[in-house]
């Protein structure tokens, strides 16, 4: 079976439960958005999948093989996050060379081309790069490595608007040419909303939503109208519909609903779509 399977993963640190019984799959050749607020457990999850941390319970399998301490499975994955694991005194171009020795699919020429596009000086030592360029350096590695599963943990941290734009374009270009599984963990949702195909929303170590972006958005909406009208509409909703939040301003009320059936609305009420950012904020507030 192709894809990554995460089964009943729990992980706790001294006094915090970082992940609670997380089960999900990453299918081959899709772009995922792993969305969660700071400290929701995104990084921990990615660290466990790529064998950098051990779970307290549960397991991860990659293309049907358990991933923990399995070199064959590990070679199919590449994770970048805010930590630089390359020796600090190493030069960028040497880091490309080293990566090439471990991942034979790493495309050095492409990495050099991207460095030029991002104006990354490959003769510089990694430690002397600014925060933004450290992110760029890691993004270039991840875009050039050509493995089936690439995890981008906060890839645009510290990047300016132009470089963020360039990064997303390159990611889509790369993906279009040769689809791979890209998991982008971020709390900047607006920018990735259209890039991703699948959405995973994580809150306090638990998975809240795990479905395609289109289906999650199709079934979510905002209903607005006068307070009494909105309240009686909410009371009439079927059980599968879930009110995830509301705003009241004066006599007007808006409710945010997941699983709305799109039935015709009584006179005076208005239905509008919700974007991913709004949905995320409502789901992860509190």
């Amino acid at each position, binding site marked *: 079976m192709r894809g990554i399977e995460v089964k009943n993963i729990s992980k706790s640190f001294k006094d915090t439960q970082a992940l609670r019984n997380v089960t999900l799959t990453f299918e081959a050749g899709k772009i995922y958005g792993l969305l969660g607020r700071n400290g929701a457990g995104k990084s921990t999850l990615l660290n466990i999948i790529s064998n950098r941390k051990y779970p307290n319970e549960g397991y991860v399998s990659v293309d049907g093989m358990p991933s923990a301490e399995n070199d064959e499975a590990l070679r199919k994955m590449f994770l970048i996050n805010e930590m630089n694991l390359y020796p600090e005194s190493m030069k960028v171009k040497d880091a490309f060379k080293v990566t090439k020795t471990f991942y034979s699919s790493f495309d050095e020429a492409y990495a050099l081309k991207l460095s030029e596009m991002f104006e990354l000086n490959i003769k510089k030592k990694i430690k002397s790069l600014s925060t933004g360029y450290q992110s760029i350096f890691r993004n270039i590695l991840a875009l050039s490595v050509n493995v089936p599963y690439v995890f981008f943990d906060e890839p645009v941290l510290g990047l300016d608007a132009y470089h963020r734009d360039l990064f*997303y374009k390159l990611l889509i*270009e790369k993906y*279009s040419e040769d689809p791979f599984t890209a998991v982008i963990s971020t709390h900047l949702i607006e920018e990735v909303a*259209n*890039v991703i195909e699948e959405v995973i929303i994580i809150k306090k170590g638990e998975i809240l939503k795990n479905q395609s972006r*289109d289906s999650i958005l199709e079934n979510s909406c905002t209903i607005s109208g006068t307070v009494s009208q909105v309240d009686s509409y909410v009371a009439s909703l079927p059980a599968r519909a879930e009110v995830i939040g509301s705003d009241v301003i004066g006599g007007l009320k808006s409710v945010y609903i997941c699983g709305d059936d799109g039935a015709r609305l009584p006179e005076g009420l208005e239905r509008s779509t919700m974007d991913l950012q709004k949905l995320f904020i409502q789901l992860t507030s509190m």
Partner: protein
Amino acid sequence: MNINPGQDKPIFIQIAEGIEDGILTGAFPEESQIPSITEFSVNYKINPATALKGINLLVDENIIYKKRGVGMFVAEGAVQKLRKKRQDQFYTNYISSLIDEARRLGISSEDVIAMIERGFSK
């Protein structure tokens, strides 16, 4: 062509409508090649599956056809077909919302008709 993520419409519909607009205005003449899925998705930073979904809407309506290994082309008669489709949608897309707003504001149907005539005669 303008793709706006903040708009109420799903992105794939916006892609389809953008191409339709291009065909209607003559930017994509009949039998000409339109940009590839990759070009659309890279340019608008959207997932290729979304771009494909939008274009497939047009393929299903025989407005666009695919030539294997070559690309996608505007079908012959696409302009005619699109005009007909847009005309059919004209009432739901424009007239009904016009009437809704007129009712809220208390504008009579005679006044609305008069305004429309005034607009046409300009």
